[in-house]
Each structure stands twice: as structure tokens, then as C-alpha cells.
């Protein structure tokens, strides 16, 4: 389909757009938490893809290529919001990210249901999105690309202009915070592990 679009087939390009637009829009909306900005990013992404279709080399999948374009467009909006036109996301965040301190799990309990059972529940997506929204932006962006969209650490780092080590630190913090929040709602209090006498350090 990509080759047909590159060869000049509009129908093929429209099919590709229909196939990927929801994913691009969702990523943008979760990154920016703003509907109009998400629409702008989606449109910019597909216009840019149309314009640069010939430069798609197939080294990454077409969806990864689109997600990287979308991330670039979303970062532009984030920087503009912060008035940081010339500053990279890495420079714009505090150096404490590289510290060795990892937030310690507080609420430790087995979940009452499996993820397979939970995804069937209507209200679960709202819970997931609310927990995501409470993450710091720098942690949310990494988690979205790595764990929601399935990019590699290297692709995530490159997309966000971060080092791989910084990406890993942010990912760990995002995962731990989301675990904490979800477990407080989805955990079974009857299985909650007391922190004492086990000091867990």
C-alpha cells in the first residue's frame, strides 16, 4: 500500500490515512490533552507524510514513521506553550531526572481482576486516561511512545530528543506512578501488604 502511494496512487494514500489516523490522533490527544491541538497535529502529520512520502525508506514501519512525525509536531506545540522555541525538551526539564532515586512503591496489593477482564469494562479507559493525565508531561510522553505505542527505547529517545538513559529513567518513573495509581483503585485491599515489619528497603 505504501509503495502504491509513493507511486502516485491517491486511493492508496487515503487508505493509509484511514488506517493510521485514529492512532496518530489518539497519541496527539494524549500527549497534548487538547482536542484542537490534537487535530492540528494530526493534519500536520498527514500533510507532512504526503509531502515527504518519497523519503520514507521503510527502515521503520510506516506507523512508527507517522508517530515520529506526530511527536515532532506535538513537541513544537509543547515548546510554544512554554515559550521555549529554541530549547530541547531535555534542556527544559530539571537535571534531577538523572538522579538515582526511584520512587518507592507505597500501595502494594494484588489486583482484583486480570487485565483481560478489566479491558471489557467500560469505565476502565477513563481510569487509564485520568492516571496518564496526572503524570508529568516528560514522563507521560515517554510512556505513551514506549508502552502505549510500542516504540523501542531508541526510537522513543530519538523521537523526543532525549538520551536513552534519560528515556529509561523517565519510563521507570512513569510505570511506577501508574502502577501506584491503578493499584489504589484496582488492588484488592484484602491482599494489601503491610509495609511493616517488611521494610522493603
Amino acid at each position, binding site marked *: 500500500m505504501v509503495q502504491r502511494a509513493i507511486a502516485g496512487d491517491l486511493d492508496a494514500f487515503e487508505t493509509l490515512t484511514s488506517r493510521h489516523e485514529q492512532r496518530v490522533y489518539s497519541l496527539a490527544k494524549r500527549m497534548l490533552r487538547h482536542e484542537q491541538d490534537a487535530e492540528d497535529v494530526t493534519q500536520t502529520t498527514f500533510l507532512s507524510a*504526503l509531502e515527504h512520502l518519497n523519503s520514507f525508506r521503510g527502515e521503520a514501519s510506516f506507523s512508527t514513521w507517522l508517530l515520529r512525525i506526530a511527536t515532532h509536531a506535538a513537541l513544537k506545540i509543547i515548546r510554544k506553550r512554554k515559550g521555549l522555541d529554541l530549547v530541547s525538551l531535555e534542556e527544559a526539564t530539571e537535571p534531577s531526572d538523572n538522579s538515582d532515586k526511584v520512587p518507592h512503591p507505597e500501595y502494594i496489593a494484588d489486583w482484583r481482576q486480570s487485565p483481560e477482564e478489566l479491558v471489557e469494562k467500560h469505565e476502565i479507559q477513563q481510569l487509564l486516561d485520568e492516571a496518564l493525565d496526572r503524570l508529568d508531561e516528560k514522563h507521560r510522553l515517554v510512556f505513551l511512545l514506549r508502552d502505549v505505542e510500542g516504540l523501542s527505547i531508541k526510537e522513543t529517545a530519538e523521537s523526543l530528543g532525549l538520551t536513552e538513559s534519560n528515556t529509561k529513567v523517565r519510563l521507570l518513573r512513569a510505570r511506577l506512578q501508574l502502577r501506584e495509581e491503578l493499584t489504589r483503585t484496582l488492588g484488592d485491599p484484602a491482599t494489601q501488604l503491610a509495609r511493616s515489619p517488611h521494610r522493603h528497603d
Partner: protein
Amino acid sequence: MKCQELLKMLNEYVDGTVDPAICEEFEKHMAGCNPCQVVVDNIRKTITLYKSGQPYELPVDFKQKLHAVLRQKWKESHM
């Protein structure tokens, strides 16, 4: 291995990229530490849940506008 050291290795462990020797130590620690077992299990479930999450639907008006803009741009660039 202590709990805090295990936490630092969590990414590599759940992503399956941890060095085999460290993996063995990790599992040895978990076998004797129920809180760490539960935290690792919670993390795996958290990731699974987000991976299987639902994408947002495009607003219908926007979807139509997007395709119209792309068709127009395509015609301009393929003239």
C-alpha cells in the same frame, strides 16, 4: 540484591532485556520477597492494560476535513 536495586532494574526485567546473570539474582530476590513479586506483577498488568487501551475516535467533521485537505494537497503536488 536489595529491593531498591531491583526497582532500578525493573524496566529491563519486564522488557526481557536484562542480563541473564542479573535476571537470576532478580528472580532469587523475588522468590523471597512477596512485595517485590506483587510490584512486578502490578507493573506487567499496568503495561498490558495500557497496551490494550482504546484509541480516541476522530470527530466526524474533522475526519471529513482532513481527507478533503489531503486530497486537495495531493492534487496540487501531483499536477
